[in-house]
């Protein structure tokens, strides 16, 4: 799980062009949105694309998205629970 969390942080930084942010700056348990990272709705859509592309996973509904996107840890939990169910 911890490896997945570190991977996710790196992927988020790369995909969302978070200049000057290192994985250590992101707290896995803190809310991803509304934090100092300044993420917006387009970033949320890019994370959806990232999940599909790297992990072959789709978010089914807005409600599910809200829970999954709460923090890096909830994202990691979603991935490890659903791995193997996706298209990859």
């Amino acid at each position, binding site marked *: 799980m911890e490896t997945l969390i570190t991977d996710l942080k790196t992927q988020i930084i790369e995909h969302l062009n*978070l200049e000057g942010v290192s994985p250590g700056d992101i707290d896995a348990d803190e809310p991803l949105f509304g934090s100092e990272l300044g993420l917006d709705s387009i970033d949320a859509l890019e994370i959806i694309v990232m999940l599909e592309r790297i992990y072959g996973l789709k978010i089914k509904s807005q409600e599910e998205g809200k829970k999954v996107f709460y923090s890096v840890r909830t994202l990691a939990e979603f991935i490890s629970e659903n791995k193997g169910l996706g298209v990859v």
Partner: protein
Amino acid sequence: MPVIAHYSLIKDDALVVDGRATYRHEDKEAGVGAFASALYKHMELSYLKFFKMDNLSKLGFLAAEALLKAVPDFADTPKDKTGLFLMNAHSSLDTDERYYETVANDENNFPSPALFVYTLPNIVIGEICIRHKITGEHAFLLSEQPDATLLCNYVRNVFDENAVDAAIAGWVEYYGDKRHALLMWVNRQPGQVGATEFTPATIQQLWTIHS
């Protein structure tokens, strides 16, 4: 009659403000990304959204930063009476091509929303407006060459209607790693030191000496 009170220019490796070269990038061949990041650091900016912008927006954003730093009374200009009128030849084609690579790739077909939102030329206007809280009249026009007559006539129409008190007007082009931005600060205060009347001829002249 409105005047050109200040101007900024980014071309190839240089930033020029009111005729003075204020920055020259060490590597003449540097791509726009490296150039823009270096200029951002040189200007000591702190605006993380900059790194999410596409190349056209970065270019226009930096040219506007440099221009507005040279405008002493910008803070006192009502932002709903500040206009923004830009032109270029290639629209957002550089980003259009980048976005389409994410669509047309058979193995890796994941259209990118973050790229798609930049596939409109007026997004650079939006970025400059967000940064400086400008809410006034604006337009993005396309023309193969800078059209000084059209730009001048239309901006003057908007001044005549009292829809703006001041405006940023100019050219912001990025395609094929060719970058060229010329932004003018136009206002209605004659008698300013060094101010030039805003006419097709003076715009053309400014354009010619810097191309």
